[in-house]
C-alpha cells in the first residue's frame, strides 16, 4: 500500500504548493490545510502501514499480535493534527485581520502597504 500512498502524498504536496504560490490570499488558507495533511500522512505512511493491529495491549493479559502498528509515529501525528489546527486558526485570523486593515486580497499589493 505504501507506494500508492507515496504517490498520493506527492499529489497533495504538489497541490498544496501550487495553492500557496497563488496571489489570492484566501487560496493560501487552502494550501495550508493541504500541506499539513500531506505532512501528517507522510510521517504515518513512512513508518509502515499495518492492517488490523492497533497499538493497544489487550486488557485481559491475552497474547499480543505478532506485528502491531508502530505507536510512535501515531503519537507524533496525533499532536501534529491538533497543532496544525491551532496554526491554521492563527493563520486564518491573521489573514482576515490583514485583509481588513489593508483592504486587498492580493499578496503582491499587500507588500506595498505599510499600514
Amino acid at each position: 500500500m505504501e507506494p500508492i500512498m507515496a504517490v498520493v502524498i506527492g499529489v497533495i504536496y504538489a497541490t498544496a504548493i501550487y495553492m500557496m504560490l497563488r496571489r489570492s490570499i484566501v487560496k493560501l488558507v487552502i494550501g495550508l490545510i493541504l500541506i499539513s495533511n500531506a505532512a501528517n500522512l507522510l510521517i504515518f505512511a513512512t513508518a509502515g502501514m499495518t492492517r488490523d493491529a492497533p497499538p493497544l495491549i489487550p486488557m485481559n493479559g491475552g497474547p499480543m499480535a505478532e506485528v502491531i502498528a508502530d505507536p510512535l509515529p501515531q503519537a507524533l501525528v496525533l499532536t501534529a493534527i491538533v497543532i496544525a489546527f491551532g496554526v491554521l486558526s492563527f493563520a486564518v485570523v491573521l489573514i482576515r485581520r490583514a485583509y481588513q486593515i489593508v483592504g486587498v486580497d492580493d499578496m503582491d499589493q499587500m507588500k506595498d502597504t505599510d499600514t
Partner: protein
Amino acid sequence: MKTGTLILSVAAQTLVPLQVLFSLFLLLRGHDEPGGGFIAGLVVAGAFALHQFVNGPEATRRLLRVDPRDCIGFGLLLGVGSALPAWWQGEAFLTAQWWEVPGLGLKLSTPLIFDIGVYLVVLGSVLTAVITLTEVDKDET
C-alpha cells in the same frame, strides 16, 4: 442571538450533555483504549461549539461559567505541575508517579493529571478561537 433551526436546537439539547459526558469517558479511559486528552478535548470543544451555534456565544459563556482563556492557563498549570512531583522524589523531571487510592482500587497518576491538562488546553484553545470569532462577527454585522 438565536441562529439555529428547530431541528438543530432540539438536537443540541440532547447532544451537548451527551458529548460532554462522552468526552470525560474518553479522557479517563484514554490510557488503556483509544481516547485521551487531545481527543476528549476536541469532543468537548465540538460540543460547546455546537451549543454556541444554537444559542449564541453569551449563552455558551454562561454555560461554561469560566472563561475558556482560564481553561488554557489552568491546563498549562496542570501540565507543568504534573512534572514536579517527580522532582520531589529526586527523580528526573516529568518521571511518572503513581499512587493507589486506598479502598477504591483507583489509580491516580501524574500522567492522568497531565492528560487532564492537555484536555483543558485543547478545550480552552479551540473555544477561545471559536467564541471570540463569533463575537467579533456579531459586532461587525
